[in-house]
């Protein structure tokens, strides 16, 4: 069965995010002060799996083996 999987990968809590700080600064210059701002990378993947749990497990392995770096990243997986 086909599943649409959304993987979101962000930096772990407390990790310096220079990109987010630069964007926050640019927004402030445009008159949009923000209390906090973070960035994340989102992957939309369509794959075949026996069931939703299998699709989630597959996506988890993708994160562990390539998409995320466990030193700095955390990730979430949503399966539809």
């Amino acid at each position: 069965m086909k599943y649409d999987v959304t993987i979101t990968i962000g930096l772990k809590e407390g990790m310096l995010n220079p990109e987010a700080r630069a964007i926050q600064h640019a927004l402030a210059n445009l008159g949009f002060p923000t209390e906090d701002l973070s960035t994340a990378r989102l992957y939309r993947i369509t794959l075949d799996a026996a069931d939703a749990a299998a699709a989630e497990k597959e996506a988890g392995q993708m994160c562990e083996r390539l998409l995320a770096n466990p030193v700095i990243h955390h990730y979430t997986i949503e399966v539809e």
Partner: protein
Amino acid sequence: MRFAVVRFGGSNCDRDTYHVLADVCGVDTDLVWYKDGLVKPYDAVVLPGGFSYGDYLRAGAIAARTPIMAELIRHAKSGGLVLGICNGAQIGSEAGLVPGTFTLNAYPKFISRHVHLRVENTTSPFTSLYREGEVIRVPIAHKEGRYVAPDEVLARLNREGRVAFRFCDEHGNTNPDSNPNGSAENITGVLSEAGNVLAMMPHPERASESVLGSEDGVKIFNSMIAYIEEHGRRRPTQ
């Protein structure tokens, strides 16, 4: 004695590194295309700088998962030397050859300039020709070179003498002002647990001839050669 310099799509310091090894240090060196694998027994393998796979995903992440890396990990596990320079350091950390990771600079821009490094370890196969605490001048050229590792990993690296180089000023002081990319504890050269893998962001191959303004980097390659001469050669890679 034979060295390999592995070329990935997007490597761009491969010929510089080859030139220093073959022409300056006078050691037999092969340029190895990653798809060809490590077919000969090499004493040392160098992962050169560049932008393998366009730095897509994370710098070094995709090259780190190519089949030749499984051969390289076997080479390292059998005691063979591995030197990762810049993108090669990113590849090495992504492959788990050294702990921690090299990520986006604290000020998120590409930095290309000479920096000073303090030599922290003079017993490794890569640094034995330096004096302890020696300050050397070597260029950096990267956007993703900020070393990050959990506190317990940093403590262990310090305890085990596995920090090879720290960014410093010309007098050897390590502080935020002498840390160009925001690396944890100014670290920019990390040794593996067994000490036979070094991942470093600065480019020693660009500081190995007087015509380039500094010869401070050539001691890394000459230390490797001295280590291999002392400890025997032609380690099996398979």
